[in-house]
Structures are given as C-alpha cells and as structure tokens.
C-alpha cells in the first residue's frame, strides 16, 4: 500500500479511482470488515473472493451505501462518499437476486434510475433503447420480469445498472443464480459488456472460477481482511499463504522445514523426503513451512525417470476420475500421504492409468511454492 500515500485527496489519478482507506465495519463488536485498504484503477474489474461470512458482501454494501462504515473512508474519483446515502452516489449495484421491480416492465425497470435524474422523456427512451440493444433484449421491452428466463433477468438487471452510466458498478454474485451451463456463457458475455462500456467494477463472488475469468485483479478475503491481492495468475501460481493456495483451485500441501537456502533455490525436508524448490525464500534454516504443488504440474510415469534426482516420489494409484478433458488421480505415497494429480488428455488414445498401478510422480522445481504462513 505504499503508493497509495503518494496520491492526495482531490487529485486522485486513474490508479486510485476508487480508494478504500482503512475501512472497518463492526456488527456488535464483531468486525465483518477489518481495517481494509485498497486502491482500484479506473476501468478495472476487481473481484472480492471469499467464502460466506468473510466480509466481502459487507464491503460491497458499504460501497453501495447500504451500510455505514464504523471507521475508515471511501473515495470515488477523488471525492469522499462514505457518508452519502445510496441515492446520492454515482454507483449502481446489480443484486444477486437481480431485485427487478416486478410491477414494472423491462423498459420501465431500466428507465427507473433515469427518471430519478429528471432526464427528459425522449432522452430516457433513447437511453433505454441503447441499453436494450447492448444486452440484446429489444423484443422483451414490454414484458414483466417474471415472464423472462433467469439469464434474461440478469441482463435486464445489468442494463438497469449501466443505464445511469455509473462511475462504479457493483456486482453481487452476478452469476450465482444461474445454472452451470448458462453461467459459463454469461460469464464471457458479462465481461465483454463491462469492458465495452468501460465502467469500473467491483464484484463479489465465492466462486473462484468466476473471479479468475472475470476479474483483472482479485482480493482473496478471509474474516474481514484481504489475504492476497493480485492478478488471477499471480493468485493462482504464487499464493502467499496456505489459505489462498487451498481456496483457489486444488493443491497438494507438504509440511516441512527449510534445510537448504540459496539465492536461486531452497530445499525443504518433508515426511516424503527432500523437495527441491526453484526459488529462494526470505527466511532461515529450520523454519517450518508448507510447500504447495498444483495437481496439473505433476507428471506420472510407470518407470522411474532417469533424469530426476529430486522431486520424484513413488506411489500407487488409489483412485481415479475421468473428466474428459483430463483425469484426476489420487496417488498414495509412502507414509500414507495422498497426492492429487491431474493429467491432461492431449492425445485421443493416450493410455489411462489404472487403479492399483505403481507409478512415479515427478515435477519441476519451479512448480513448487513455499508458503510461510
């Protein structure tokens, strides 16, 4: 957070279009959001990712104005908004349940916010029309929300939020109410619309896949604080703690102590033997650490690979699952530890491993990440 000190209030650049400054919200002395600070760039899609009760929704509701912060401030485009009521903020929110007005038609729903701005009638009609075009719902303008499918309702909700050209768009579990197939399709559509409009966006989700595909940057939250903030690939490939590694995707974790530390690599002694990690650490010998290894970075072979001195363990396959694109194996190592291994089926007639087979699991030193917390 060092660079956030450089910008002064009132002349916030694009880098801190939205600034959350030491925000805390307590409910009956329990901190739902605990001293959170972050700067969000203009035009960025920023995801708050965490399981239920981590404080992500409370943070979003404070941005929208439905909750008042206990302490801390929120700035939007250089102006403090923490104390403004929701109807005076140039922020619009898409609710998880969409919250479409059931007594109004699609067009009236989209026009609702524009009418509140006392926009002239013909300009409202124009704007509603443009919005309907963006979300491709022109033929449904006269329908009531209950006559639409879930996916269409979601697009109406999006159009209603975007109609007012908000400075900040808030999405609360935007795909949560859709079924799986529709979700994958909508994910890209939603991302494209937001990017086309160019609005800055904060989205809340518990679904890591949703966060990874939609967001430019992700903040992983747990018990009211940010554990790690970074681009999706940073979060995935370089998690900074056990919680983040475990929360995003599948991971194999080895517990051990540092026995060798060089600038370009380190060695961790674990119950399964020595692991050779391809990066140096800031720590000292004898420190207790965890080592993370993603299942898709492991290779399986029937014969012991001759070119690997390190990072090769023998085991037997105890469980396997075929997923079409890849297979997931559980390999029991000596000492009982189970290793998850994902093997991509790059060939149509590639041979599958069978349950009970003796195999050697190996990986590159660079695949391992040392976690100190």
């Amino acid at each position, binding site marked *: 957070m060092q660079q956030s000190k450089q910008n002064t209030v009132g002349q916030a650049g694009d880098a801190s279009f939205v600034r959350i400054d030491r925000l805390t919200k307590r409910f009956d002395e329990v901190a739902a959001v605990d001293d959170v600070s972050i700067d969000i760039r203009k035009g960025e899609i920023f995801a708050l990712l965490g399981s239920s009760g981590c404080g992500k929704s409370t943070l979003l509701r404070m941005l*929208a104005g*439905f909750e008042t912060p206990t302490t801390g401030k929120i700035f939007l485009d250089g102006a403090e908004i923490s104390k403004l009521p929701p109807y005076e903020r140039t922020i619009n929110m898409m*609710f998880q349940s969409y919250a479409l007005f*059931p007594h109004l038609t699609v067009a009236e729903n989209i026009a609702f916010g524009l009418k509140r701005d006392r926009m002239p009638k013909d300009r409202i009609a124009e704007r509603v029309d443009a919005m309907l075009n963006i979300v491709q719902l022109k033929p449904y303008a006269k329908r*009531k929300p209950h006559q639409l499918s879930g996916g269409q309702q979601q697009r109406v909700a999006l159009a*209603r939020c975007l109609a007012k050209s908000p400075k900040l768009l808030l999405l609360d579990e935007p795909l949560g109410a859709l079924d799986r197939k529709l979700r994958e399709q909508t994910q890209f559509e939603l991302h494209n619309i937001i990017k086309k409009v160019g609005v800055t966006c904060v989205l809340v989700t518990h679904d890591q896949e949703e966060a990874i595909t939609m967001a430019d940057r992700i903040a992983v939250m747990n018990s009211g604080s940010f554990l790690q903030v970074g681009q999706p690939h940073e979060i995935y490939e370089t998690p900074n703690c056990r919680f983040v590694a475990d929360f995003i995707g599948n991971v194999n974790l080895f517990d051990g102590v540092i026995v060798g530390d060089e600038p370009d690599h380190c060695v961790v002694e674990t119950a399964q033997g020595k692991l050779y990690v391809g990066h140096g650490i800031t720590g000292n010998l004898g420190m207790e650490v965890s080592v993370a290894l993603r299942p898709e970075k492991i290779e399986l072979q029937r014969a012991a690979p001759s070119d690997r001195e390190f990072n090769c363990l023998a085991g037997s396959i105890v469980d396997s699952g075929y997923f079409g694109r890849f297979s997931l194996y559980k390999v029991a190592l000596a000492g009982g530890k189970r290793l998850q291994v994902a093997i991509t089926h790059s060939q149509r007639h590639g041979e599958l491993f069978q349950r009970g087979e003796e195999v050697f699991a190996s990986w590159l030193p660079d695949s391992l990440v040392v976690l100190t917390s």
Partner: protein
Amino acid sequence: MSISNQAKGVRRALTRNWGRRTVIGIPYLFLILLFTVPFLVVLKISVSETEGIRFQDLMSYADGVVQLKIKLSNFIFLSTDSLYVQTYGSSIKFATFNTLICLAIGYPFAYFMARSPANIRPALLMLVSLPFWTSYLLRVYAWKGLLDDHGVFNNLLIWLHLIDEPIKMMHTGFSMTIGMVYAYLPFMILPLYANLVKMDLRLIEAAKDLGATPWKTFWLVTVPLSKSGIIAGSMLVFIPSMGEYVIPELLGGPSTLMIGRVLWDEFFSNNDWAMASAVAVTMVGLILVPLAIFNKYQADTGGVRGV
C-alpha cells in the same frame, strides 16, 4: 417397477385424490349450506307473494299448467322510494369514508410494524388483535361513555376550560365514524402487515441505489407492491361497514342512515320480511357483485407473481 407395484401406485394416487377432494369439499359444502342456500331463501322471500303470514310458492302446478309467479313490487318500491335510495347512498358514503380513514391510519401503522425488529413484531401483532378479546358490543358501547354530553371527553375539555358547553358528539356522523374506524382498523392493518412484512427489501435497496429518495421509493415501489394488501384490507373494511348495524344503532343518529338499520326496521318493526329481503338482495347485487368482479379482474391482470 412391476405391474402390481404400478397398480398399487395408481391406487395410492386415487386415494390421495379422494383425500384432496374431501379437504377442498368440506369448506365448499359448508359455504353452500350456510351461505348459498340461505341467500337463495332470502332471494325467494323477496319475490314471493305473501298470504297472511305464509309465503306462497314461486311455482305452482294446476290443471297441467306450470305457473311461475315472481313478485317485483318490492324491488320497484325500493328503487322509487327516496328513503331507500338515500340510505344506500349514505351507506356507501360512510363505508367509503371509513375505508379511506382506516387506510390512512392503517398503512403507516402496518408499515412500521413490518419494518420493526423481528423480535418485537409478534408483540405488536398481539396488540393489534388485543381488542378482539373483549366483546365487540361492549367496546362500541364504551365509546358512548367517552363521547356523551357528560362523557369523558366533554368533561375533560370543560375541566381544561377549553369549552363552556359540552360539544354534541354522540349520535352524529362524527361519533359513528369514530366507532367504525375504531372497530374496523385491525381488519385493515392485518392484511397490510402480512403483505408488507414479506416484501423483498432488496427491491427497496435497488430503488435507492438507482437514485430514488426514501419518499419516492415509498410511492414508486412500496405502495405499488403492496397493492394486493391495500385491496384486501379495503375489502375487509368496506364490505362489512356497508351492512353495519350495531355501530349506527349505538353511536349513530338520525342523520346517519345505514342499510343495516333499515333492514332491522323492516324485519322487526314493520315485520315486512319480503321488503327486508329485497333490501338485502339489492345490496348484494349493487355493491358486492361489482366488488367481486373488480377483485377477480385485479387477480387476473394486476396480480404480481412472486410477491
């Protein structure tokens, strides 16, 4: 599934249907016996020829001729006599007035009840229904003691030196309206509360998020969404107020003509059952039938699903 199992399944479905029919059938039977049949009896009396104290049958058969005799003189008299026309008008006026006042007082009441913390709502609901625990007659009668020339209010105002002479409150439109509003307010509050309490509060948040002030949100979202509650409450107040007898009798005066009192007079003072029946049937026809049609129209078109 084997064939015998399937047969068992079908049999089970049939018995389940029977159970369902019985459950629906009992209330229908109840309504037919205790509402439709008596109404038909009243309808019959209203168009029957009287013969001493007996009513003649509508249909008679003699010498191979079926005769149907329907006497319409009661209805003709009803529509020409100004007393009845005025009474209907005045009943509608008081019932409408009562409904509007109940709505004006009941809506904010129900709104704040529904928005109060969930743990005190049962207590508030209890307080609204508390008056039902004492006799209706007694409660209405108690207003006499409050509004009389030497009643509590007048005595209090005289004691405060705000007035020298008692104000005439009893047996006026004022006393009757107070009594009606007092008696029917819970019937407005309860359906409104039931509607408002299950309203999706995220819609209110969405309205505010889109720039509507709390006042605008109330008129543009809360009120339209509580339309079914407003209609239900208004019906529950308007319909019984139309035929109200006790309150006009106890608190009303010569200026407050109500259909209920006219009915009573026809039945028990004039002993003209046929006329009384005609008055009752006309009320049903004139007021309740249009209301029922309106209600059905509302349910068909204005009904908002999922709310």
